[in-house]
């Protein structure tokens, strides 16, 4: 059983954060929250999303799992104006999701959840540095790095207590230094890892510019990017595997 009413903006924000990595996913309709965990086919980027029942205007669910084509669902959600409410109701018999937006009614065929890639386990990582910054600062570093390279280094210098976003291109370099005055918070430990900009750019698209992004970083280790949306009732954690120089 699943029946919910949610603001279009909240649903779009939730779906966008997942669709940057995968085309289809399983949605867990738990009693207390709406949850998605997915990893891209190359096993490089992962997203873990939860949206508490309180983020919905109304929410009733009993722990079912549905499989959806995200592009399709986003298209439908795109029919709603900002501020519109979206009504969702699962028909258990037909295994279809009924969606209503201001008189518009759409019946979405679902995908057998067993045919969708298994949800990943979240690696238990011991990351030495934690940087809390604004989404806009991260975005600025990523945009500049993208002008010169297809990969980006994220680094913490514990002596200087500074976080660096760096890129080396064929001829040009980009370097954004953020020290503890620029950052919301910094737990400095030695950390330096290289990442594909293709992935990071996609994740960055979904991260609200005004959000506080908690970045956990290690030495040639995956990075964790955590932020909240829907007034703190929605949580997203991205994890991205590094490009490594050793080995």
């Amino acid at each position, binding site marked *: 059983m699943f029946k919910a009413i949610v603001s279009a903006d909240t649903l779009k924000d939730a779906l966008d954060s997942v669709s940057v990595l995968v085309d289809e996913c399983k949605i867990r309709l738990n009693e207390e929250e709406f949850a998605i965990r997915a990893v891209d086919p190359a096993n490089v980027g992962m997203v873990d999303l939860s949206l508490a029942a309180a983020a919905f205007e109304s929410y009733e669910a009993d722990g079912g799992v549905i499989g959806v084509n995200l592009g399709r669902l986003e298209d439908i959600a795109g029919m709603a104006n900002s501020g519109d409410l979206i009504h969702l109701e699962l028909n258990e018999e037909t295994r279809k999701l009924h969606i209503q937006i201001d008189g518009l009614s759409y019946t979405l065929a679902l995908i057998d959840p067993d045919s969708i890639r298994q949800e990943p386990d979240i690696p238990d990582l011991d990351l030495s540095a934690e940087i809390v910054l604004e989404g806009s600062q991260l975005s600025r570093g990523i945009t500049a790095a993208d002008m010169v390279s*297809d990969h980006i280094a994220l680094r913490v210098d514990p002596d200087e207590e500074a976080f660096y976003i760096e890129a080396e291109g*064929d001829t040009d370099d980009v370097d954004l230094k953020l020290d503890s005055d620029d950052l919301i918070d910094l737990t400095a430990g030695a950390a330096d890892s*290289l990442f594909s900009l293709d992935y990071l750019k996609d994740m960055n698209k979904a991260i609200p510019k005004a959000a506080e992004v908690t970045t956990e970083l290690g030495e040639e280790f995956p990075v964790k990017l955590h932020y909240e949306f829907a007034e703190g009732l929605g949580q997203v954690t991205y994890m991205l595997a590094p490009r490594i120089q050793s080995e």
Partner: protein
Amino acid sequence: MRLSEFIEIEKNERAERRRLAGEKSYEILDRLDGVGDQFADISGGDAVGSVSPSIFVGRSGYPNVSTGLLSPVGNESDAGQFVTDGAWYEEGVSIGDVFERRTSLLNASQTTPVETNVHDTWEGFLGVQREVALADRPIGIEVGLNGTPELDLANSVDEVSAPTGPRARANDATLTENPHVPRPVKKTLEDDDWRAGGAMNYLYNRGFDVYEINTILSAGALGQQANRRLVPTRWSITAVDDTVGQYLRGKQRNATSVDTVSVWHNEYLGNSFWIILAPGQWEFELVEFKAPGSVWNPDPAAGIWLASDYEGREGRSGYVEETAGAYYAARLAVLEYLDSIGRQAKALVLRHVSDDYWGPVGVWQVREAIRHAFDGDHAESETFDDAVTGIAEQLPVSSADLQRKSTLAAGRQTGLDIFK
């Protein structure tokens, strides 16, 4: 004072390359002068009897393409050796040989709008051209020429297809013998619901090499009926390398990875190739170093010219930006080797083009040199970085510069699974 100090004079790149090809070897100029003599007896209005081992579809003037029958007039008995294919490598032909062979082919051509649907064209000049493309050996033809053969070297300086010979306008052409068409080619010809990609892979799996397949594709004899068009030779070469490459890549998607870092090497026609294969999921990159004075970097005072293109596990969504057809030819050769051992790998191909490479012979040279690199011995390395550092000693750039240019040298993509 020079005018160029006041106004920007647009350099004609083709003219520059042509000048270079001339400067580097007097032999080729002699040879090219000789071409005129060789065909001096031929003039407009003549009917020329010869054999045709292959065809050429030129892209200049697109969407009107020049579609031609190639004939080694005067050398009919060994017509087969004039066809570009892997046998040239086995034979060890030199750059001079390539120019000599290709410029000994008379290109009797007509102009055809590329949108012409040729699915049922068996008559006239285009019909003869199709028969030649489909046949598995040179066939006898007679062409009626409208003009005198003229050498068009600009058309020859092309890094994808081999150089072309003198061109003459043709009025008509007829076959003087019945062509022999292999059974699988008949099958792909007759099935006009079959998409071109699938038909290309079918032929490849039946033992046809990419050279034969691109000739057939070029004549518009593959694919769904509505899509059967002439394809310029240059594009057909890359299309076949890419299509067969993607097919082989698909087969390896779930293959076990190689378990050591291996380095392979080969040299051919002034080009050195190093291939590093390393454990992990598929990634591929071609990095090219073009020495000053080589064909695409003609200014002897210029620095080394670096170019690279890369793809990750999901492949590319667009055409490469810097390395053109060489990328697809190199990728195919690497994928063929991985297919033969049933593994996947991360592959970095480094190509050093020295100033001995004075004339572009076509990407068959890249494809065959890399295919044959895997026939030779290889070295093993502890790590990918060690392999890169070792090879960099033999390259004209430092390993730091290489890391700046190369995505793979900078870092290899890991998966989240190894961090559990």
